């Protein structure tokens, strides 16, 4: 029910695009994907949520874990383009301040 596109930009930024539902099953894959990127040297990561149709608390946990892992390695994790329903989950859990959504993937790491 979910696919992850994982690419790395010319600037070395890892871009993860989950397509479909991020529920408990998919959250495990997301967590592994994010850890793999950091271990592979991509410590700056953008998770593009434009095609994520649903996101639950386990996916939030995976994003927070990815954020911590990236920061411990001197990088960061940012989210881009969440849909309105996905944004509701960030707001209800007060995570919209730590994972502030960016308008697009390209400028997610601009100042």
């Amino acid at each position, binding site marked *: *029910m979910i696919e992850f596109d994982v690419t790395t930009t010319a600037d070395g930024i890892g871009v993860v695009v989950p397509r479909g*539902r991020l*529920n*408990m*099953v998919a959250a495990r894959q997301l967590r592994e994907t994010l850890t793999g990127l950091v271990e592979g040297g991509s410590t700056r990561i953008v998770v593009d949520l434009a095609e994520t149709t*649903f996101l*639950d*608390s*386990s996916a*939030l*946990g*995976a994003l*927070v*874990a990815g954020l*911590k892992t990236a920061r411990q390695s001197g990088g960061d994790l940012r989210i881009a383009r969440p849909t309105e*329903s996905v944004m*509701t*989950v960030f707001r*209800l*859990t*007060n*995570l919209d*301040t*730590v994972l502030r959504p960016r308008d697009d993937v390209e400028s997610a790491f601009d100042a």
Partner: protein
Amino acid sequence: MPESPVAVERIEAPVEPESLDLVQDRLESWLADHDGVSVTDRTRFEMALVEIVANVVEHAFALDADVRGRLLTVELRLTRELLEARLSDNGLPAALDLGAVTMPDEDATSGRGLALAVAAVDELTYDRVDGCNHWRLVCRRAAG
């Protein structure tokens, strides 16, 4: 007189992570037949239902319990006033106080599920009856 339902749906599934997609698929196709439900109500109802199903999957059975004996039933009901889900499973009793559930700190990597469910719907109750766990979620539909 209790309000007569517009639609009902019953889902039976084994208690395993893969059942989340099954429940979500069935919920989506059921709601697709009833286009009067607002996007906001659909979103918050689905959000809470998924968190409770995930909670049952994670906590209702010992890790070594035989998967064939783990059963979850979800009954969905739609009326003009509300969306309701009644879940029952034959797992272990849940030791929890829904009134005391709080959202964990921003850096927590787990523990948000029940708090999210409480925040998303208008009523969430848990009861242990006759050796089964019973959850009830109610989302009062937005006017119009």
